């Protein structure tokens, strides 16, 4: 069930955000491709060369001799072909404007380091130390520098590279000077690096594996081919040995941590798009255009699954760790007046779709953490009420006397099944529920009906007391109908039942329809469409298949979307975040719609109505099954949604159960509102019933003003927590023409 917040704080430590990419991990120099590749991709060869130079010290030698361990681990190697880093590195050298080394103006360190062996490992160590302004002396028993390089490379390549890189640095080179024992050096120098090469003397030293490059004698380090490394690894040893030497000089400890050669990141090959590798020119090198092209193939691997998939993390550009920190100081602010609550809106922006956990290799559940933080904020009264006020009132209405229903058909005292359509399906079009229930009754005449909200709005508002009340009502209805198997039309309802009413078994309406081989007229023969899986269907593959089967049966030619099945994403409804963060909600809708120009087939009425509101052609699967609406049906306004719910209950009682309905008293007030204004009111979540209440108040109390410009009355009233303003005119007895309405959250302190 719920994870505790402390668990999240522990779990977040396993986040792999800072783990290196595969190639960086195995590269002897740990060349940071997140720095190198973007520069290459933009054709900034000089900048890329600087990154490369800083990592490898001798760029010409390394790019010539590198054994390319990165190629074996590149995820592209299993898809198309590994990134050709060697040619990219060569290209960075070839096209760089300035190959000269940097000159560092720093004061001398006043510490002396001796290096035994002027092979390339000793020289790379000497160069890095000299650039940090240590006093470096290199002892070489032969009469030349380069050591083993003479067997592997052309002297003009490596000697030129060595000369160029040492151009700005001073060091003492003692050729033809064989060190016989290290005692004398130990006394004269602060540290010694022994790199005498393959088959070179180790002076009886042994490696001490408690520290990188450490020997069993304090102050003496060893590396390179002497320790069994190849030529390129030996260069890297010389560079990294500097860290161990500096640590020893500063602290006297030989316990520098070994560099990591592995990474915990994982890449899902499903998301790699094949791109043909770029071929070099005849001379075996890249042109500048080729280099840019090849660099663009790089996936820049990192563990960023969460930020790539999660709309919230992408919108805020924040990883779970940062979110965890910001949420923590928001819930536990450091000041008494609660300043610094930086993440209040972020907490309220989570769609609660659970994708963050599903795509995280460590299963870090940021969504659940945000939900728990939301609850804490609400309990403390620190969460702005406005974020969920409308939805909680909407839920209250859906669970109220006019709309809620828990009933077994006449002649039965208990039911094997109960239909739980959810509060939004009938609000969208009451016929969705009526037709479905009629179908279900034909299969099983004892099927009960449960018209109720599943409690999701209270869950998302973090309001546990209200939520518990809703769950209790549902449980009581279920018990009173004989513990039936519940038939769901909404995946969110199903998810809520799984979480809070696990004792209730359930099945989806659409699975029953498919298994029951429901008859569908092929009115839409061969129309192309894409099924839009709601985020709450992610763990329901059977349901997803059923909806596709029903759609195909309805004559549709289905094309997949980029995010569907187990990667289904939220339409923006989840968490009811649109009040807290309207611009985020719009972004999410836009992203979901950008997947295809095909009409969508939705099986969550919220997905359908949200998309339809933008003008997108969207069917509900029940439009297809029962041939009800075309894909261009405008979604009802919030006022119409409430009316639909009332109608639904009345129709079920009257038309299905053939019972008398309690006469509903219609309001005496008649409003004349143009269509366009109705849409505006709905977009601002203002209900016509609220407008009526304001006008009735203004007329009764005479509390209104006259706008001299338009001649209209304007009045206001605080209803609950919101203050509503209404501009109207009287057009008859209890008849009013509405010209405008608007609302605000702050209250006017009126005397």
């Amino acid at each position, binding site marked *: 069930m719920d994870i505790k917040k402390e668990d999240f704080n522990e779990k977040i430590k396993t986040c792999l955000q800072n783990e290196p990419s595969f190639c960086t991990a195995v590269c002897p120099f740990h060349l940071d491709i997140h720095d190198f590749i973007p520069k290459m991709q933009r054709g900034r060869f000089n900048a890329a060369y600087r990154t490369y130079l800083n990592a490898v010290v001798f760029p010409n030698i390394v790019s010539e001799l590198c054994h390319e361990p990165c190629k074996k681990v590149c995820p592209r190697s299993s898809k198309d072909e590994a990134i050709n880093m060697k040619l990219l590195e060569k290209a960075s050298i070839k096209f760089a404007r300035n190959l000269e080394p940097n000159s560092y103006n720093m004061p001398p360190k006043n510490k002396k380091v001796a290096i035994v062996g002027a092979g390339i490992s000793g020289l790379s160590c000497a160069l890095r130390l000299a650039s940090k302004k240590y006093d470096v002396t290199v002892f070489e028993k032969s009469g030349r520098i380069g050591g083993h390089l003479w067997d592997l490379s052309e002297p003009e390549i490596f000697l030129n590279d060595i000369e160029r890189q040492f151009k700005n640095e001073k060091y003492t080179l003692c050729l033809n000077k064989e060190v016989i024992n290290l005692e004398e050096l130990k006394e004269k120098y602060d540290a010694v690096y022994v790199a005498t090469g393959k088959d070179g003397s180790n002076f009886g030293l042994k490696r001490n594996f408690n520290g990188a490059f450490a020997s069993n004698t304090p102050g003496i380090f060893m590396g390179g081919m002497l320790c069994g490394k190849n030529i390129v690894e030996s260069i890297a040893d010389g560079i990294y040995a500097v860290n161990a030497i500096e640590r020893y000089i500063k602290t006297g400890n030989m316990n520098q941590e070994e560099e990591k050669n592995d990474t915990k990141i994982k890449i899902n090959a499903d998301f790699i798009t094949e791109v043909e590798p770029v071929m070099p020119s005849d001379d075996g090198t890249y042109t500048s255009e080729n280099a840019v092209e090849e660099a663009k193939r790089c996936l820049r691997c990192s563990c960023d699954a969460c930020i790539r998939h999660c709309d919230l993390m992408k919108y805020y550009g924040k990883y779970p760790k940062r979110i965890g920190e910001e949420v923590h100081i928001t819930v536990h602010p450091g000041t008494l007046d*609660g300043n610094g609550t930086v993440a209040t809106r972020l907490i309220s922006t989570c769609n609660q779709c659970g994708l963050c956990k599903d795509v995280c290799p460590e299963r870090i559940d940021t969504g659940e953490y945000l939900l728990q933080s939301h609850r804490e904020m609400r309990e403390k009264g620190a969460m702005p009420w406005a974020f969920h006020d409308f939805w909680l009132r909407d839920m209250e209405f859906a669970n109220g006397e006019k709309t809620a229903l828990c009933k077994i058909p006449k002649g039965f005292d208990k039911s094997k099944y109960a239909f739980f359509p959810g509060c939004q399906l009938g609000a969208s079009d009451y016929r969705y529920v009526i037709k479905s229930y009629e179908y279900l009754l034909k299969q099983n005449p004892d099927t009960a009906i449960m018209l109720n909200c599943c409690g999701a709005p209270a869950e998302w508002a973090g309001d546990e007391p209200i939520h518990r009340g809703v769950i209790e009502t549902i449980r009581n209805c279920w018990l009173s109908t004989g513990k039936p198997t519940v038939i769901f039309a909404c995946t969110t309802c199903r998810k809520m039942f799984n979480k809070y009413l696990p004792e209730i078994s359930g099945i989806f309406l659409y699975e029953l329809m498919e298994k029951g081989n429901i008859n569908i007229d092929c009115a839409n023969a061969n129309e192309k469409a894409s099924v839009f899986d709601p985020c709450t269907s992610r763990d329901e593959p059977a349901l997803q298949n059923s909806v596709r089967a029903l759609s195909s049966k309805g004559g549709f030619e289905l094309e997949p979307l980029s995010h569907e099945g187990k990667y289904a994403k939220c339409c923006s409804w989840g968490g009811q975040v649109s009040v*807290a963060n309207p611009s985020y909600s719009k972004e999410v809708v836009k992203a979901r719609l950008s997947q295809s120009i095909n009409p969508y087939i939705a099986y969550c009425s919220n997905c359908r109505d949200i998309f339809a509101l933008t003008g997108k052609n969207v069917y509900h699967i029940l439009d297809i099954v029962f041939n009800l609406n075309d894909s261009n049906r405008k979604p009802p306004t919030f006022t119409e949604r409430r009316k639909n719910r009332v109608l639904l209950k009345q129709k079920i009682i009257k038309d299905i159960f053939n019972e008398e309905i309690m006469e509903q008293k219609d309001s005496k007030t008649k409003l004349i509102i143009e269509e366009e204004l109705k849409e505006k009111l709905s977009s601002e979540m203002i209900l016509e019933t609220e407008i009526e209440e304001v006008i009735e108040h203004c007329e009764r109390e*005479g*509390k209104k*003003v006259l706008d001299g410009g338009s001649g209209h*009355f304007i009045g*206001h009233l605080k209803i609950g927590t919101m203050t509503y*303003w209404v501009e109207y005119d009287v057009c008859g007895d209890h008849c009013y023409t509405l010209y405008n309405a608007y609302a605000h*959250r*702050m209250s006017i302190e009126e005397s």
Partner: protein
Amino acid sequence: MTEKKIICFKCNKELVPKKTYFNYLEHSFFTDILSCPDCGEVFISEELVKGRISEVEMQLEDK
């Protein structure tokens, strides 16, 4: 009655700016709002609601 003036229906007086207190999320503040000099009936335009009021609401929510 001059055009564009806002008149209190009850008192038939033109509304004039008056210091008015507001509160939201336990914060209290004031600004000048058109009010009836006699009965105190107020008027806030949609422009003000969608502009400054909405801005302040957002700021307080993020505070």
